């Protein structure tokens, strides 16, 4: 089971700059490490993280194996309208997870 932790305010004033934090459980295996049998463990990373606000993309990140396991990203966004903030992670081995949080903008 994929576990995602998102920290976002539930309400915000219109025009306010809010901080959004997202963490996902993932090994971010680099593809450069030998395992216990001496063979290289194949790469398994999240390649892309995106955040959208009511369907409009506000952040897109391309990640590399140099991102620590259980990738954590914190960024900012202007609270424009009430609705849904969607976070999406995609990567190797068909990894795709999407999680949304609702926000009320007054």
């Amino acid at each position, binding site marked *: 089971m994929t576990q995602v932790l998102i920290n976002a305010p539930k309400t915000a004033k219109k025009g306010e700059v809010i901080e959004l934090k997202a963490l996902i459980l993932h090994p971010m295996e680099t593809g450069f490490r030998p395992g216990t049998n001496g063979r290289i463990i194949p790469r398994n990373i999240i390649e892309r993280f995106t955040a959208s606000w009511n369907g409009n993309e506000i952040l897109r990140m391309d990640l*590399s194996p*140099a991102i620590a396991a259980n990738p954590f990203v914190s960024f900012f966004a202007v609270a424009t309208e009430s609705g849904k903030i969607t976070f999406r992670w995609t990567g190797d081995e068909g990894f795709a997870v999407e999680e949304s949080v609702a926000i009320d903008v007054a």
Partner: protein
Amino acid sequence: MPGTTKEGTTRRTFIAGAALVSVLPFAPARATPEAMAAAIKEVVGDNAIREGRVTLDLPPLIENGNTVPLTVSVESPMSDADHVKAIHVFNEKNPQPHVFDARLGPRNGKAVIATRIKLGDSQKIVAIAETSKGEFFSASADVIVTLAACLEDLT
């Protein structure tokens, strides 16, 4: 006390040396300062890179290279006319020079990205910000890593 300082240095040097020796048999091909320069060139092209506006925040002494908190903040009004379009982070000595590329826009309000990265060795980290006006700003930080990431799987 002068004695303490000397001992401290010796111990640090020993640990760094021991870490290096244990890494060597497994060390894969590494990125080099040249590889980093090439990766930066790919992003920047022939544009000039200026120092300033970018703040790269990470601890100078890292005990565990597996998770290193890193924050990049760029001074910018983040308006439609003038905003940070992208933030790129590069390293010198991990197996690959790229760390991440983030695409931002005026909807971010603040050009700040924080994440956690892996570092395979003591090295220089470079952050480059690209503005909507086509300018490039950079900042760099030198870090010392005592326990490197990317070693054999201990689990």
